[in-house]
């Protein structure tokens, strides 16, 4: 199968290998050796993409990665809407992660919901010297007084907390007791821990296990009558409303979604999740830990799914339905059939405008693989992809289900490598984050933010696919890209020719 109409797979492989050699030349020897392990060309039939992953970034190169705090506060805990998340430490981390991820929710902000607020202990020098535990206790008191309808508090540790040896667990326990068992969760997600935001996801998952689940008494009365069709959405952050355009499909097929994690999520939903019959898991990377835990401890099976693009949506709906009875299986077919005309119309409209266009991706979580199907539904090809913070099991899933022979793979790509790859391969679209966006647009390459959908979305589900298709067309076929070269700077002198 060809990745490009003009090059054979063998030629593409050779070109990509040469490209890798070329970018490595710029590094000092030791660095080149280390980076070489993260760059490869996918070989069909191999169990993974042939790259090392989840290893420390190299100092002094421009990594795109974030930190454990970003993984815990920015991704997992931040969207839990009825709890107050304290960015514990200096002001910066909370400020930069303030409302930057478009985790949509409904609620009265500042009164019973708090997602788009920045609560910080704003550490000063004296807090570093004397420790911040007393201040943290006082902060919790002040939160209780000023925000009495909060349903819980989390403490998201920034770098200094672990370094100065603060005992946030003790403070949380004492305050929880004082407030009659209020859920107060200390999270040890200091930014220096681990190699990327990935460890922050894991730590956040463990905090839910230890400080939410383990507090629930097994015989506590459920807030609702259980049904055989209760499921929980895990690992959807409701970027631009993604979890909503996913939830609606699950409900239409006859399931009941008892919890959303963590986009538009609430503490009550977290607590209810162990009562689910199945956990459906979208972002495997960030929430496989808690899903495995629930499987072990409560016997709840979990099932990965992919709601990008009609092919994968249909596949996923059927896979989810396979855990249930005929009623649900029929429901899945009914939903697929219902939306087929919409999908046909979307593809009929946009595919002719996008057929054969090439894409290079570099994103986090699940997207370096999950969105490939959606592009393929539109006749597009993903010619390069890689993970910011993927692990080996992500690359296995990518190799076995998503990428084609010869695809360029780049793990924890550096700014330099990514620029060179795009410059040489000249894809029609790059999908990555805000830090990369303007680099490629300056180069005249259309770009979409595939972490946050820029200002758009949702992209999940059938309703989301219409927006996805529209956005890719809008990005690639915007007339602005024809203007990047001044006419007097093109070789052909088109203005003079036109005059003749």
């Amino acid at each position: 199968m060809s990745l490009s109409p003009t090059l054979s797979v063998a030629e593409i492989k050779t070109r990509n290998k040469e490209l890798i050699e070329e970018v490595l030349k710029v590094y000092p020897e030791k660095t080149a050796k280390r980076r070489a392990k993260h760059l490869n060309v996918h070989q069909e039939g191999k169990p993974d993409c042939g790259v090392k992953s989840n290893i420390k970034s190299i100092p002094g190169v421009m990594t795109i990665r974030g930190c454990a705090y970003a993984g815990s506060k920015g991704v997992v805990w931040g969207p839990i809407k009825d709890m107050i998340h304290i960015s514990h430490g200096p002001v910066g981390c909370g400020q930069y992660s303030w409302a930057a991820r478009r985790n949509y929710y409904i609620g009265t902000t500042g009164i019973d919901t708090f997602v788009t607020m920045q609560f910080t202990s704003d550490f000063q020098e004296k807090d570093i010297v004397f420790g911040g535990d007393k201040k943290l206790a006082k902060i919790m008191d002040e939160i209780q007084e000023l925000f009495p309808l909060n349903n819980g508090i989390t403490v998201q540790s920034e770098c200094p907390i672990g370094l100065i040896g603060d005992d946030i667990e003790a403070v949380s326990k004492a305050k929880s007791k004082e407030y009659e068992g209020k859920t107060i969760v200390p999270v040890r997600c200091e930014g220096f821990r681990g190699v990327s935001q990935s460890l922050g996801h894991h730590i956040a998952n463990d905090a839910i296990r230890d400080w939410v689940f383990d507090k629930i008494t097994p015989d506590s009365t459920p807030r609702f009558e259980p049904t055989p069709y209760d499921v929980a959405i895990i690992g959807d952050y409701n970027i631009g409303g993604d979890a909503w355009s996913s939830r609606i499909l699950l409900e239409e097929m006859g399931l009941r979604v008892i919890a959303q994690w963590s986009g538009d999520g609430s503490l009550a939903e977290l607590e209810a999740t162990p009562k689910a019959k199945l956990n459906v898991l979208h972002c495997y990377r960030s929430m496989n830990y808690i899903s495995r835990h629930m499987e072990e401890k409560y016997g709840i099976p979990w099932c990965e799914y992919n709601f990008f693009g009609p092919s994968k949506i249909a596949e996923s709906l059927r896979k989810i339905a396979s855990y249930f009875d005929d009623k649900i299986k029929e429901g899945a077919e009914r939903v697929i059939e219902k939306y087929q005309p919409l999908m046909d119309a979307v593809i009929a409209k946009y595919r002719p405008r996008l057929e054969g266009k090439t894409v290079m991706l570099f994103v986090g979580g699940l997207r370096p693989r999950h969105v490939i199907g959606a592009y393929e539904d539109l006749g597009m090809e993903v010619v390069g992809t890689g993970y910011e913070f993927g692990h080996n099991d992500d690359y296995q899933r990518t190799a076995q289900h998503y990428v084609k022979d010869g695809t360029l793979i780049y793990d924890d790509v550096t700014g330099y490598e990514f620029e060179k790859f795009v410059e040489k391969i000249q894809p029609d679209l790059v999908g990555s984050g805000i830090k990369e966006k303007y680099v490629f647009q300056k180069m005249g390459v259309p770009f979409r933010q595939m972490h946050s959908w820029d200002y758009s979305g949702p992209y999940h589900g059938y309703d989301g696919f219409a927006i996805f298709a529209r956005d890719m067309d809008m990005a690639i076929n915007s007339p602005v890209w024809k203007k990047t070269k001044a006419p007097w700077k093109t070789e052909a002198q088109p203005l003079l020719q036109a005059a003749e």
Partner: protein
Amino acid sequence: MPQSAEHVLDHFDLFRGPEYQQMLANKKKMFENPRDPAEVERIREWAKTPEYREKNFAREALTVNPAKACQPLGAVFAAVGFEQTIPFVHGSQGCVAYYRSHLSRHFKEPSSCVSSSMTEDAAVFGGLNNMIDGLANTYNMYKPKMIAVSTTCMAEVIGDDLNAFIKTSKEKGSVPAEYDVPFAHTPAFVGSHVTGYDNALKGIIEHFWDGKAGTAPKLERVANDKVNFIGGFDGYTVGNMREVKRIFGLMGVDYTILADNSEVFDTPTDGEFRMYDGGTTLEEAANAINAKATISMQEYCTEKTLPLIAAHGQEVVAFNHPVGVSATDNFLMALSRITGKPIPEELARERGRLVDAMADSAAHIHGKKFAIYGDPDLCLGLAGFLLELGAEPTHILATNGGKAWAEKVQALLDSSPFGKNCHVYPGKDLWHMRSLLFTEPVDFLIGNTYGKYLERDTGTPLIRIGFPIFDRHHHHRYPVWGYQGGLNVLVWILDRIFESIDATTNVPAKSDYSFDIIR
């Protein structure tokens, strides 16, 4: 099914459809364990009261929605103002991802910066090896002319010594011995981004003037007629720097801008990515020691830099983000006095045009109450302009403003009858501002993008001036300094006033009066 291929609904409209509304209502009722709506309403009303304000202002430990960022952001902002310079932040890498994102979201531009990517082992053993490897990688890969090092809170807590680390790195061959690696300690738990700007700029100037960290002789000042200009941390740096250069050109002033980052935050889209663009050359940075004087546009961004410069024998002059007629007058007269160059007629005409515009429009602003928040200097600049427009800058709040700043603001307020009922709030945050807006309402709020939450809560129309502005485009391309800049600020204020009048009078058969064409 509301979605269609013909008319693709965005999230704005999609979720307003009955299917989604029903789904969300059901989710809330069944699974969210929501609070009693009456109780939510009661607390919402209570949170608007003077009683709540009192409790809110009694806060000692908690900060909610602060209007400040941390030091390294300012250090990165200053560093990219030098030719082909890459900022290198010593500490954990997530911080750098945040600074780059923050600057990119405001300027809609790439923001290049590297980190030494310290992790647990560095936390235990120190980050020396990260510095040694990191400098070598940055030097080889990005071919910078200078690497400007600053720190994060992590490196500061464990006590990494940049001077020693850079020296050792050079000995180990990471970069050549004579290569320029200025540095600044910028702990995130001291001051804010304006402090970081100050520290980084001071570090760079000190490096060039005081013997390049012991690798070169100290420079001897040979006074010339040039003027140094420092902009400070400024979300309008792109527009402002160009305007200032135009003014210098009109006056025939020979100048050096220290940390001119206006080009790197405004590169063209023409098929090429420029990681470096513009910037003060390293030669200019060194030669700046010979200047006659240094003008800082923002006093609180140069609290340490200016004394350093003064100690080298130059006159230093500081302004507070001058906006409007008198502030620009003072800037130009100082410039004229220092350089001996007269203020040209063209600038006098521009001044007259700003006064003309103010005369045309002051009636719409006169007596109106404003709340302002932002960085200390910007607050002073805007408050001064409002006073000269006959407006009342009723609440002036800076999370990173201290006691000295508050006294300065108070002195400004005392200088005008319009400042009589106005108050200054140093060290307070936007949740304090919320209480102020409920208990002592004003007509308009001036601040950055985060003010939109205050606008929604309190109904106070927001005029976006400050940093960051994420949700509006391209304002940073316009100057706010000089008479032309004053005109821009005037127009932004007036536009919002007129929009607000129109929005509250556009109900047919209810408010047909006042929905005027002529204003």
